[in-house]
Structure formats: structure tokens, C-alpha cells
């Protein structure tokens, strides 16, 4: 490459760009000549990667000018699946899309529009803004499999998710289901260095033996999906052996004794058969974590991919962090809190989304914490206590699988339009066959993409999106951290690609959203608006990137001590969460088994004896991306699942054999990687596989998108989803494995059929067997504390689930059980007449429209009389405002002091003349301002005092 291009030449500009093939957003130096990208390399000055780049990052160049990139807006010309396309202009595409959206909105309401998006690949706040202005609550990501359940649970318990772990002085790090060796690589070597340098203990919880487990001080190879049992048992040990931080618990936590009683049954002996671990291993882990303080636990995807057992485990871990005194201390789990710059939440314009559609958000009736009910409750607490809230995008979204089910079944209502931006739901959501059916069926679909994915094939419009080098990239951890790392656009988008901000903005404008919604013309301008509050001496976003690139606020530990409270409902770390209880969910961690397991479902385990775990990342791919890059694909041409030699021998499987992996949902095939890296009772499958080189006209699975797709066999049935957060199960399912044979090696038409619920496929075959609303949940909610009252809601009134009150629709005032209306300030009004209740020297009703008073019988009344001593001359009583007014000055007469007071300035005047009281050099004067005359306090004229 050096031979061909001199990238140190004078006319080559170096731009500080960023990679965005994963969440790390490593810094990239882009060398640009004449507006063309000629070379890209890792930025040595970037804090994340220090010059390094991984497999994916090194594909920056090939990504920009990849011939298979989509470069022009395209419109479907034939029927769905015919794969005929015509190129259209941006104008035409956006106008037509906007017209269709407005039509659907008109006919079926805005909630019939849904939108899926890929992982941190778009300017999500821009998307949310469009959706908010359209008026739909049904935006979603794969958020429920990735951090959001954890964030919301931890925020409910301790006020903010303590995700900014501080490794530097840590004495113990728990990597729970996390393999930085494969996922967040630039950070991985840090752990191993610290182990050597600080004697830091490293605990790895992972059913697989991985690159990371290789370095652990203690490795817990648990049964996949039994993480909840392990964390409950560890919490039990910490509580019963009194290993926690007494001071912290005493001062900052609630209900420790209740918690200890509640956790009593979850002993290590109880957990041992569930987790396949030895009770002593669990004790050792608990002791190692609790006694090596400060310690921290790194979040991992695993926590959110366990299905119905997820929230109990996360709750227990959140409590462990807290009671061991690790919250917000050096070397512990840092809580950043909201940022000083304009946060994503503020950019989203959630204020314009009407309340009545919020309750129509799909999934909000089932999974309350990660949808509007939970979000609004927690965001309200956060706004009250921190001043700002976390994003609604990610944290408050429709339940994706339920949206797909709604498209198929029309339950709870028909979703008619779907946006997919930078996502390939067939690969990334659970129960792919069902998702694929939904994509085929949805009436109107718009896809914003880089490449032609199986999803894009079903679209009505495919819009070309600009990649990382072609747009600025901002890294703010989903908009919930207080730091910012910014990168600039290296080149303008090639061909007719547009950055997704521009697409969303222009679509919004085409839909009739005006300047109010989109005050800025470009992403850079909007981002400059974001960083402006930081007060940096820069005049543009690009200048910020060039000069500073990042902003990290000064690190402050133990913010709760300075503030006097945690940002929770009660101001303390809630070991027994009041918010959960409000939703009718146990306030303390309460065990639910893995979605399918040999203890709870022995009959399932008989047919499907092997434990399946999936969803873990593997190099060099990221989710379903890069399968169409031959450079990368050459290294990993085929999908492999890992199986222990012992099990492989029993099943007569040899290394490299193609095998079927089957669950109750169906089957898919991968090749066997026979390796003792996993327990003989379990297997691990790779995710994300599709084959871009295959036939795109295959009606059952274009691009081979189902054949080796592990999500064909995962479950999104409601009873397998976490009842609190809605995350579904990738791990700990039950499966069987058998070799592909000569007559049974093709993925057939029958294999591609779906069923709802998915788990009925094996027994009842394809088809919809029960509607989504009939499906059972893993745990039914107890009666919520703030349940809707049985009393009928009168005409003109409505129940607001969010604030849990009946309110009058015309005025928004709350209906009190007493029959009175109460406004936001707490003032009472009479129902019907809306006369204000005035209690002053008797009870009166005031008609604020004309200032007339009535008594309770409805007869006109003189109104309240002044309650104080007799008023001096020149002072009038105003019964409407209930004030005494000095006629001459118009200011308030204060009956207690006898002075007239200008409340705005705090100036005093005398009642008789309206002269101003002044104190000059310690002497009191009255000053006639108009006549410019001075008097002493006995009304004798005096000379003007000299200063």
C-alpha cells in the first residue's frame, strides 16, 4: 500500500474519524486526498485503542468503497420476493414514504408505525425524534438483549447503572459472562496487566473456557442460563457470613434484614444442582468478591440474555455491588449520571409524544420496566434528583418480538409500517422464522442499510446510509454517561448515500415536521449544539474534534454523600425496590429458573437433553455483520458450534461434521468444533450466520438466512421472557444434536415454517396456535399498588397509568376521591363548574373567569373579607388575589409591619405618602423619588444625604 500512495504528502488531510463496527468506537486517522479516503489507521492518541485496530476496524477502507454497498435510494418494482428494484431520487423516495406514513397514521393511528434499528449504528435520538413527532411509541432495538434490562434494574435499585467500572485500583474484578478477549478487545490486556501489577483478583463466570477464563484466579464454569441461581447464592453467602460493608448498609441502604430473611432459601447447596457448581466454589467466589474491596463487576450481555431468570440475577448482582460498598468508590463501580452537555434524552423531544399513545406501546402491558410505565417512573425520579433523565431510545421501547407477532396476528393491533435501520432482524432477534414471516407480511417497510440483507429484500424502499468514515461519530454510551468522545466526518458520503441523521431529518420534514422539530440543517450543527454547554472555546463541532476530541468531566466519587441521597425513589439504595413493588413485582430478588431446564421441565429435557447456549460474540464478526466481506470471511468460512469431545463421541460426531441442532422451535445446522472448551452437557452455537453469496431468490430463506441461524432455535415466547424487562432467552435452552446425513442435510421448506408460540412447533406444527394476549407470562404480576381503582371513570375523565390517577381530559386536573379536582399546584377546584376553592376567612368558590365569588350552595357571594386589622386609608382589599394593594404605588401592603413592600425588589415604602425607605450611612430616610426630596423618619424635610 505504501508503494502506491504517499499518505504523508502535503495535499493529504488527516481527519480524526472513528470506527463504528462495535461499541468501542476506536479512534481512526483517516487520510483524505481530494475528498477521497486513501488510507485509514488506528489513532495512536485515542484513549481506547492507542493505535491498534481489530479485524473489523481494519476494514474501514473496504467498507467505504465496497461494491456491494447500496449507493442509491431504491424502490421495489415487483412483488415482494421478486427482487426487482428501480432507482429513484431521494425526493421521490422521501415524498412517497411520507405520504404513505401519513396515510397509515390517518387510517390506523400513529401506533401502526413501528421502527427497528441496529446496534448503536444510527443517530438514535434523531430516529426517536421522527417517531415522537409522528406520534408512535413503537420504536425498538435489540436493546432488551443488551444492557437495557440491567440498566433499568440497577437504576431502580441504586439510582443509575454503575457501569463505569474503575479498574485502576480495583482489588477484584468479576467478569460475568464476559469475554473481553472476543468482544471488547482493546480493553482486554488491561485486566491481565493489573492482575500482575496489583494482585487484582479476577473471577470469571463463563460456561465456556475462553481466552479470558484462561487468565482467571477463579473460574466458575456454570450451567448456561443458571446465572440467576449463582448470583442469588452468592448474595446469600455475603449476607449470612456478614461479609458486607456495615457502614454503607447502615447509612445508605434500606431493608437489609428483610433481604437477609428473603434470601434465606437460596443457599449454595440449593444452587449447586442448578448451576452444576460445587457449593464451595460458590462460597469461594462470594468471599473473594466481598473481601477484596474495592471490587467491581463488569456488565456482560449474558445478564440480559437469560430470558425469564434475568432480572432476579441482575437484581442480586446490583445488591451485591451496593452492600459490599463498591458503589461509586475508587476502584469500584462508578455511576456517571447525566452529562453536562445536551443529552440524547433532550434531543429526542419526548415531550411531543402524546400520553394516550404511550399506553399503546406494544409490550408495555407485559414488560413494564423497560417500557413507558417503568421508564416514566424512573425518568421522573432521575429528573427530580439528578436534573436530567436517561434516554427514552433504548430504555423505553416496544417489545421487539411482540411487534413482530403483532404484524402477524394483529394482536393487540395491526402494525402496518416498519422501519429497519442498520439491522437485520432475521439474524438478530429470537425466533427468526417468526420474524421472517413478519417481514414478509408487513404492509409497508422501509430499510436504511449498507448492504442488501435478507431483510432489505422484503422492503418497499431501501435507502443508502453513509458509513463511519462518511459521518461524524459520537460516543456517549447510549447517551447515559457524562463523558463524550467525538470524531469527525472524514469524507462526504459517496454516491447518493446520506448519514442517517439527514435521512431522518428529511423524512421528518417531508412528513410535515417543521423547523420546530428540526432546527438545525446538518448533523455537525446539531452536535455543536450538543457540546455548547461544555463551554469549550470552539466555534464548531469539527474544531472541537480537532482540538479536544473528547471531554471527560472531573471524576467525583461518592456523589451520594455530597448530594445526601442516591437518585432513587427513597434516596437510598433500595434493597427492597419500591418501584418494582409499585408494578406488582417482588421488590427483592426472587428466583425463576432458566426458560427450559432439566429441573423444572423434565419432560422437555427428556427429548432435548443438551443445554444450548448462544448469543456470545466471536471474532471476526459483529452480530450479523461482515459475512459479506471476503477478507474476513476467508478466515471463518463456516459456522461452528462447540461440543465437548466426550459428548461428541457419544453422539458419533467428529470434528468438522455438519450437524443439526434442534429445539422445540425448529432446527438449524452448523459444523462441529470438538473441543473440551465446554461442559459435556452443553453446547455453544455461533450466532449471526447468513450467506450473502447464496441465492437471493430462494423463497424460504434468501441468502441462506435461516439455515445456520442460531436464532431459529431460540425462544421469544412470553413465558420464556423476563416478566419485568421482556428480555428473551439465548442461553440455557434445551436442545438435541445429531449429524446431518446424506438424505437429511438440506434445510427444507418445512424447516422454514414458523409457529406462535414458537415452542409449539415440535408438537403442534406450523401456524398460529394462540394469540399473543392469551399467552402466559413467566410470572404474573401481583396486584400493583397503584392499580386502577374499581370505581368507574366518569365521562370526560381518563385513567393515567403513568401517574396512576384519574384526570379530567379537558383540563388535565386530577379527580380526587373526595370528588374535587386538583391541579398540578395542588389547588382544588369544584367538579363541573371549575370554580376554585378558596379557603380564606371562610370557604368560598371563585370563578376565575370573571372574579366572582359563590358559596357552596352556588349563591353569589361577596367573597372572603380581609382577615387582619383594619386597613389604613389608601389601601384596598382585593378578594380575588386575596391581597391588600396600596393604591398609590400598586405594591402590596403588609399588614404585619405596616409597610408597603415591592416584592420584586424588596423595597419598602411608607403607607401615607408612598415614599421610599432608604438607609444611607446608617441613617434612615424616606425618599420622595418623584419630587427628589428627602425626609427623616418623622416626615421632616432634610438635605439629600451625601455618600
Amino acid at each position: 500500500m505504501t508503494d502506491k500512495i504517499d499518505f504523508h504528502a502535503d495535499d493529504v488531510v488527516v481527519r480524526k474519524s472513528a470506527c463504528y463496527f462495535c461499541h468501542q468506537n476506536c479512534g481512526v486517522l483517516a487520510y483524505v486526498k481530494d475528498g477521497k479516503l486513501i488510507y485509514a489507521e488506528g489513532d495512536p492518541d485515542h484513549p481506547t485503542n492507542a493505535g491498534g485496530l481489530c479485524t473489523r476496524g481494519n476494514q474501514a477502507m473496504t467498507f467505504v468503497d465496497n461494491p456491494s454497498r447500496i449507493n442509491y435510494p431504491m424502490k421495489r418494482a415487483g412483488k415482494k420476493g421478486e427482487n426487482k428494484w428501480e432507482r429513484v431520487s431521494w425526493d421521490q423516495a422521501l415524498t412517497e414514504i411520507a405520504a404513505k406514513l401519513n396515510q397509515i397514521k390517518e387510517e390506523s393511528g400513529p401506533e401502526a408505525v413501528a421502527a427497528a434499528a441496529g446496534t448503536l449504528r444510527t443517530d438514535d435520538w434523531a430516529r426517536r425524534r421522527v417517531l415522537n413527532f409522528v406520534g408512535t411509541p413503537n420504536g425498538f432495538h435489540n436493546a432488551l438483549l443488551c444492557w437495557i434490562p440491567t440498566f433499568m434494574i440497577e437504576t431502580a435499585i441504586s439510582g443509575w447503572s454503575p457501569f463505569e467500572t474503575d479498574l485502576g485500583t480495583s482489588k477484584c474484578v468479576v467478569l460475568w459472562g464476559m469475554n473481553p478477549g472476543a468482544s471488547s478487545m482493546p480493553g482486554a490486556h488491561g485486566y491481565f496487566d493489573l492482575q500482575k501489577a496489583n494482585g487484582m483478583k479476577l473471577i470469571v463466570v463463563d460456561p465456556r473456557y475462553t481466552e479470558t477464563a484462561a487468565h482467571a484466579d477463579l473460574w466458575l464454569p456454570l450451567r448456561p442460563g443458571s446465572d440467576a441461581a449463582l448470583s442469588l447464592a452468592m448474595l446469600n453467602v455475603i449476607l449470612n457470613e456478614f461479609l458486607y460493608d456495615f457502614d454503607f448498609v447502615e447509612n445508605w441502604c434500606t431493608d437489609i434484614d428483610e433481604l437477609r430473611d428473603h434470601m434465606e432459601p437460596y443457599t449454595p447447596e440449593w444452587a449447586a444442582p442448578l448451576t452444576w457448581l460445587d457449593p464451595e466454589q460458590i462460597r469461594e467466589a462470594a468471599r473473594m468478591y466481598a473481601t477484596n474491596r474495592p471490587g467491581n463487576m463488569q456488565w456482560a450481555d449474558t445478564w440480559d440474555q437469560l430470558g425469564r431468570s434475568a432480572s432476579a440475577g441482575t437484581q442480586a448482582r446490583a445488591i451485591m455491588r451496593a452492600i459490599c460498598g463498591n458503589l461509586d468508590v475508587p476502584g469500584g463501580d462508578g455511576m456517571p449520571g447525566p452529562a453536562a452537555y445536551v443529552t440524547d434524552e433532550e434531543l429526542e423531544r419526548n415531550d411531543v409524544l402524546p400520553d394516550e399513545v404511550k399506553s399503546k406501546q406494544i409490550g408495555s402491558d407485559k414488560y413494564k420496566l423497560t417500557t413507558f410505565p417503568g421508564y416514566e417512573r424512573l425518568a421522573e425520579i432521575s429528573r427530580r434528583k439528578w436534573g436530567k433523565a436517561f434516554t427514552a431510545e433504548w430504555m423505553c421501547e416496544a417489545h421487539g418480538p411482540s411487534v413482530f407477532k403483532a404484524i402477524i396476528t394483529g394482536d393487540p393491533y395491526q402494525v402496518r409500517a416498519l422501519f429497519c435501520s442498520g439491522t437485520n432482524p432475521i439474524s438478530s432477534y429470537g425466533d427468526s422464522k417468526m420474524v421472517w414471516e413478519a417481514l414478509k407480511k408487513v404492509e409497508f417497510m422501509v430499510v436504511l442499510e449498507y448492504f442488501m440483507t435478507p431483510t432489505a429484500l422484503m422492503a418497499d424502499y431501501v435507502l443508502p446510509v453513509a458509513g463511519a468514515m462518511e459521518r461524524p461519530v459520537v460516543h456517549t454510551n447510549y447517551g447515559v454517561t457524562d463523558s463524550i468522545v467525538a470524531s469527525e466526518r472524514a469524507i462526504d458520503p459517496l454516491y447518493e448515500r446520506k448519514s442517517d441523521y439527514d435521512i431522518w431529518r428529511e423524512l421528518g420534514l417531508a412528513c410535515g415536521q417543521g423547523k420546530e422539530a428540526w432546527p438545525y440543517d446538518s448533523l455537525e450543527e446539531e452536535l455543536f449544539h450538543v457540546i455548547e454547554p461544555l463551554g469549550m472555546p470552539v466555534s464548531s463541532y469539527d474544531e472541537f474534534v480537532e482540538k479536544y476530541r473528547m471531554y471527560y468531566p472531573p471524576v467525583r466519587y461518592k456523589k451520594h454523600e455530597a448530594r445526601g441521597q442516591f437518585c432513587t425513589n427513597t434516596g437510598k439504595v433500595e434493597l427492597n425496590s419500591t418501584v418494582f413493588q409499585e408494578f406488582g413485582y417482588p421488590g427483592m430478588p426472587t428466583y425463576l429458573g432458566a426458560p427450559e431446564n432439566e429441573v423444572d421441565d423434565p419432560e422437555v429435557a427428556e427429548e432435548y437433553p443438551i443445554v444450548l447456549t448462544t448469543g456470545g460474540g466471536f471474532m471476526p464478526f459483529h452480530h450479523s455483520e461482515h459475512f459479506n466481506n471476503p477478507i474476513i470471511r476467508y478466515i471463518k468460512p463456516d459456522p461452528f458450534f462447540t461440543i465437548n469431545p466426550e459428548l461428541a463421541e457419544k453422539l458419533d460426531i467428529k470434528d468438522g461434521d455438519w450437524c443439526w441442532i434442534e429445539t422445540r422451535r425448529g432446527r438449524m445446522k452448523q459444523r462441529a468444533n470438538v473441543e473440551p472448551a465446554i461442559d459435556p452437557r452443553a453446547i455453544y452455537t455461533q450466532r449471526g450466520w447468513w450467506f450473502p453469496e447464496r441465492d437471493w431468490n430462494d423463497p424460504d430463506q434468501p441468502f441462506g438466512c435461516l439455515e445456520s441461524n442460531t436464532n431459529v432455535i431460540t425462544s421469544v415466547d412470553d413465558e420464556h421472557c423476563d416478566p419485568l424487562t421482556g428480555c428473551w432467552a439465548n442461553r440455557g435452552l434445551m436442545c438435541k444434536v445429531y449429524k446431518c446425513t446424506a438424505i437429511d442435510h438440506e434445510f427444507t421448506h418445512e424447516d422454514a415454517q414458523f409457529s406462535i408460540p414458537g415452542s409449539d412447533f415440535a408438537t403442534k406444527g406450523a401456524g398460529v396456535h394462540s394469540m399473543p394476549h392469551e399467552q402466559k407470562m413467566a410470572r404474573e404480576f401481583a396486584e400493583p399498588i397503584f392499580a386502577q381503582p374499581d370505581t368507574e371513570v366518569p365521562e370526560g375523565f381518563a385513567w393515567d397509568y403513568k401517574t396512576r390517577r384519574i384526570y379530567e381530559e379537558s383540563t388535565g386536573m386530577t379527580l380526587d376521591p373526595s370528588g374535587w379536582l386538583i391541579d398540578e399546584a395542588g389547588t382544588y377546584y369544584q367538579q363541573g363548574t371549575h370554580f376554585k376553592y378558596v379557603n380564606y376567612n371562610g370557604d368560598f368558590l371563585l370563578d376565575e373567569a370573571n372574579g366572582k365569588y359563590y358559596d357552596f350552595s352556588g349563591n353569589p357571594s361577596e367573597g372572603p373579607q380581609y382577615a387582619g386589622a383594619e386597613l389604613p386609608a389608601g389601601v384596598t382589599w382585593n378578594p380575588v388575589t386575596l391581597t391588600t394593594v396600596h393604591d398609590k404605588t400598586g405594591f402590596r401592603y403588609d399588614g404585619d409591619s405596616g409597610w408597603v413592600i415591592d416584592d420584586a425588589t424588596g423595597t419598602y415604602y411608607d403607607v401615607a405618602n408612598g415614599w421610599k425607605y432608604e438607609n444611607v450611612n446608617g441613617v434612615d430616610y424616606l425618599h420622595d423619588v418623584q419630587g427628589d426630596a428627602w425626609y427623616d423618619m418623622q416626615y421632616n424635610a432634610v438635605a439629600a444625604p451625601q455618600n
Partner: protein
Amino acid sequence: MTRYAMVMDTRRCIGCQSCTIACRTWNELPIDIIYNPVVSEGAEGTWPNVHMNFTPMICMHCAKPACVPACPTGASRQDDDGIVWVEPTQCMGCKVCANACPYGARDYTKSEGFMRKCTFCKDRVREGEQPYCVKTCHQKARIFGDLDDPNSEVSKLVGKFKTERIHEDLGTEPQVYYIRDLGGRG
């Protein structure tokens, strides 16, 4: 004198193959050619007592290379700083060197017709930069430098740790040194 060498700290290597891909991209290699794979047997042992090691491979730039004397055309050559490389215009594509190399460091694709091998990124190195695989390694598992300079990092590492070289018994004196974590887990 300069004697370029590389140290592979396999304790740091996580097998991500970033170097493999980076090299393919930087050198614009044909699709089926790999200069520096990262290889591993995967987990070894019996569950759960297993261990795993990764070995980043590359041309060993041997002090006594087997490939250079095997070349009938003189296209394969070794410079004074130890870098072994092939001049593509002089190579007739007989592939005897690829068969001579005990490390699989040479590769060939029919459409090009000449032998390819790692050059330690000699263009970069001679301008004072790191080879591209070293630059891209975010784990700092690949360390490159001048073995004749006692202050270089490679000299220090080779002096400090017990290192091993691959197929040392063949007498090729490979110049890539491996620091192994022999303890496995723990």
C-alpha cells in the same frame, strides 16, 4: 548493525486475528493468502481442567533461512538487517522455496504467479515505523525491534524471559521469539 526480530508474547495474545486481517488489508493480499495466521489447538485437556494457547505465526526471517538458498532465480533474498523478501519481477514461480520453508511462511496464488511472503513491512520499518501487524495489535502481543540494539524492547524481552523458537532443531535460526505461558490456567 541492525537485526530485526519479533517477540510474540503469547500470554497476551487472545487469538482475535486482527493482525491476520490487518496484514491482508495493508498488503492488499489476494483472497487466499495469509502471511500471519494466529493458530491454536483451542482448549486442550479434559473439562474443566483445560488450557488454551494462541500462537501468532509470521515469517521467522531466519538467520539461516531454508528458502533463500533454495531459490533458483535469486528472487528470494535476505538483506543485511535480516529481512527476507522476494522480488516479484524476478520470481519465476517454481514454488520450491514454499516447499523449503518449514514454517509455511510463503504462499502463492496462481493468478499472480510469483511467490509472496511477509517482508516485516520493510517499507514501513525502514521509515522508522512498526510493521502493520504490530501496529494494529491492540493487545501488544507482537513486539518488534532491533535485536542488535541492547536497549530495544525485543532485546530486553529476549533477555528477560525464557523464550522459544519454532522448529529450532532445523537449524534455521528463526528470529521470532515466543514467550509462552506454560502454566496454563491460574
